[in-house]
């Protein structure tokens, strides 16, 4: 119940910035239009590239725009607050709360993600559906799978962002690590270009790294490219990375806590 309360308040906190949300929806839509035309030209030149057709490719673009803020691909979300609180020392307050630091920030981040999915996710998708032809999931399993896949994508992303924010315990300033991690996330999640277009070993590598769980996997589930056992496998892939990353967060936090010195007075 406590975590639901944290998540609800995070949801409300983000929902106060209405103009920011509107501006963001507009920006997502502009990028969606640009990439849609780019992909249409690409699939004009090669109609079966990566096993997608034109409608799949355009759907992929708009799903990517919908997930971009939801999974906080560039960084951001509650982990940015954490990094700032480590730098300022306020993290000491987080550490003596009777709630685990990871659970606290994860619950808040899920609340934020829900808000971003409903606004910055849904609104540009509607714009995309009006301007272009977008594929809907063609089976209940694909739709349901997508609904399970998105929260898993958020947890994987949270795990990575939490680790990045934790570097502030040692470096004080986490913006460097954040930029580096954002660059990798954009490229290896399939945001810059669907991973199905990556040739040879690069494609295999990209599809097995945790970042692919943030965009490529949910999108492929929506597009019905994972069915039956394969669908469960895709979800297990996401869940597996989520568990590994959260365990890493826990280890890092345990080490960092021993390092924190709280100034009295």
């Amino acid at each position: 119940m406590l975590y639901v309360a944290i998540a609800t308040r995070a949801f409300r906190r983000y929902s106060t910035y209405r103009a920011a949300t509107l501006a963001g929806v507009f920006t997502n839509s502009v990028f969606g239009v640009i990439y849609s035309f780019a992909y249409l030209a690409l699939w004009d030149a090669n109609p079966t590239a990566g096993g997608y057709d034109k409608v799949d490719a355009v759907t992929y673009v708009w799903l990517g725009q919908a997930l971009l803020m939801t999974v906080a691909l560039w960084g951001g979300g509650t982990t940015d607050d954490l990094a700032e609180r480590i730098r300022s020392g306020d993290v000491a307050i987080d550490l003596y709360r009777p709630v685990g630091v990871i659970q606290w920030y994860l619950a808040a981040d899920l609340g934020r993600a829900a808000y971003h999915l409903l606004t910055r996710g849904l609104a540009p998708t509607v714009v995309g559906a009006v301007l272009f032809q977008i594929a809907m999931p063609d089976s209940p399993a694909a739709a349901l799978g997508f609904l399970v896949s998105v929260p898993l994508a958020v947890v994987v992303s949270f795990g990575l962002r939490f680790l990045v924010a934790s570097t502030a315990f040692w470096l004080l300033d986490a913006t460097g690590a954040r930029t580096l991690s954002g660059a990798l996330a954009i490229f290896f999640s399939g945001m810059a270009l669907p991973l199905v277009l990556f040739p040879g070993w690069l494609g295999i590598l990209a599809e097995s790294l945790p970042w692919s769980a943030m965009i490529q996997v949910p999108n492929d589930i929506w597009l019905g490219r994972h069915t039956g056992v394969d669908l469960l496998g895709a979800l297990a892939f996401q869940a597996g990375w989520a568990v590994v990353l959260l365990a890493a967060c826990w280890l890092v936090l345990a080490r960092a806590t021993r390092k924190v010195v709280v100034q009295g007075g």
Partner: protein
Amino acid sequence: MADLATLVRPWHPLARYGEIARLWIRAEISYPASFAMLVVGSMLINALDFVGIAIMFSSIDQLGGFELREIALLYGATGIGIGVADTLIGSVERIGEYVRTGRLDQMLTKPVPLLVQVCSDRFTLRRLGRITQATVVLVWALPVVDWTPSRVGMALVMVLSSSALFFGLFVLFSCIQFWTTDANEFANAFTYGGNTLTQYPLTIFPRELAIALTVVLPIAFVNWYPCLYLLGRPDPFGLPEWLQFCSPLAAAVVVTAALLVWRTGVRHYTSTGS
């Protein structure tokens, strides 16, 4: 004595800009590990950005009738343009934050032009990464052009106009934050969006959009028209050829509009009182 003062005056804002920028560079390198990662990270973002386009060409030979090196030419030109603008004045994006926190009030009391203060604030060397990467891509694309003296001239004009156009776009659309302080992302659609859009040949877009990007919001002048001249291509949309020489004019119009809107924004500004 008075004559000397008037002679020095035009350089005064630029000198102040340099001084403030130097302070921020010193602050930036005081967290060396983080700074190193920032530089590597931003170089990586830019490098991977073009790698993405190059990977596209593992499944295709041409995009919108343009081959990879021709697209690299477009990419390099727009990349240098936004890189220069972003390095020099990218901080103008944060104008809404200055209004919200009241820092704009402090700035208004100081004897340095407001635009200079806002633009030099949080100056960061990391943005040089984009210029470097775009230059590398542009140099790689150079063999695709059949060089003549007039084309060399056009290439230089293109890089200057492209920087000026992005300068204008950054200032113009950041001014919206004088009215709605938390809508800073709106400008991204035009600055970074304009950059992304001009990485592709305009032929991938519908004709109406290409015309709108010429007449309404002249983003096509960043690289499209000069590149048509460099490549010796006829206009694919059948638009007049003299447009290929109009990039400086488009840049002048956008920069003038931006400075006018900036003045209006500053006049409209009333302190938050906090």
